[in-house]
């Protein structure tokens, strides 16, 4: 079972929550933004919102920019 995570195929085994996905990738959840299939998922739904097969997931953060 695979998703597209930040533009690359990523095997997740079985459906997982966004919270668990962040944890498995070692991402500090502070000030991170999550978009699934072009829909923003607000933070208080990360515990309950599931990532499923073929989902397109974007994990974003702020970097330097002008």
């Amino acid at each position, binding site marked *: 079972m695979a998703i597209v995570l*930040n*533009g690359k195929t990523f095997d997740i085994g079985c459906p997982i929550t966004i919270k668990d996905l962040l944890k498995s*990738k*070692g*991402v*500090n959840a*502070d*000030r*991170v*933004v999550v*978009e699934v299939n*072009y829909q*923003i998922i*607000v933070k208080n739904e990360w515990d309950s919102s599931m990532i499923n097969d073929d989902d397109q997931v*974007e*994990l*974003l*953060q*702020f*970097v*330097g*920019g*002008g």
Partner: protein
Amino acid sequence: MEDKLIIGNVELSSRLFIGTGKFSNNAKVGECIKVSGCSVVTVAVRRIDFEAPEENMLRFIPSDCIVMPNTSGARNAKDAVRIARLAREAGCGNWVKIEVISDNRYLLPDNFETVKATETLANEGFVVLPYMNPDLIVAKALKDAGAVAVMPLGSPIGTNRGLKTKEMIRILIEEIDLPIIVDAGIGRPSHAAEAMEMGAAAVLVNTAIATAHDPVTAALAFSLAVKAGRLSFISGAPQSWQHAKASSPIEGFLDSLTD
């Protein structure tokens, strides 16, 4: 002397905005902000790179600064709106610098798409500051679309070439009843002072500070130049003349000594 800059109902303590890209050491960003007194900084939104994790830029920005995400990477209005919404979700407020660029060589902004994105985002409650190619008609359209300020380029991004668009910016300052913030191309403190002397409300500087040998000293120099330029504008610089006009009295001279 009261000389307030108010944007989006916020009174800003500095007329220097700093961009946070291209710093070789992100810790310097915080030092530059502190030494310059800057109160608005720009950041970009990017995918997290799991192979080479980058520190979140917010870590280096003092909490009393306004964080203004840009929409860099957007090639049309739709992209810009998507990026702005994502940025707002990060919880840093609702300011956004719209940047829509589809030209890879000169990185010139697409004014048409910028107007569209401005309208959508202003209607959604964003405080919208669009980066634009200086054009009076477009600036009017941006104002009508709900922009709180207009950010014309001085010269292409990262070129450090100064105010190549000076005359067009002058017209915007004269005709548009919004703060005009010169963005892009300001490569020296003297360029910043020049923009401020013309009556620009503020300037946004990134490359010239970030890539200076000593960014912190550069940030200080820019902040002083911005202040000097602003004071010069307020003071009402006098007219210039082709021929000399004596500063000392032209009567009461001693008689010339003759042999």
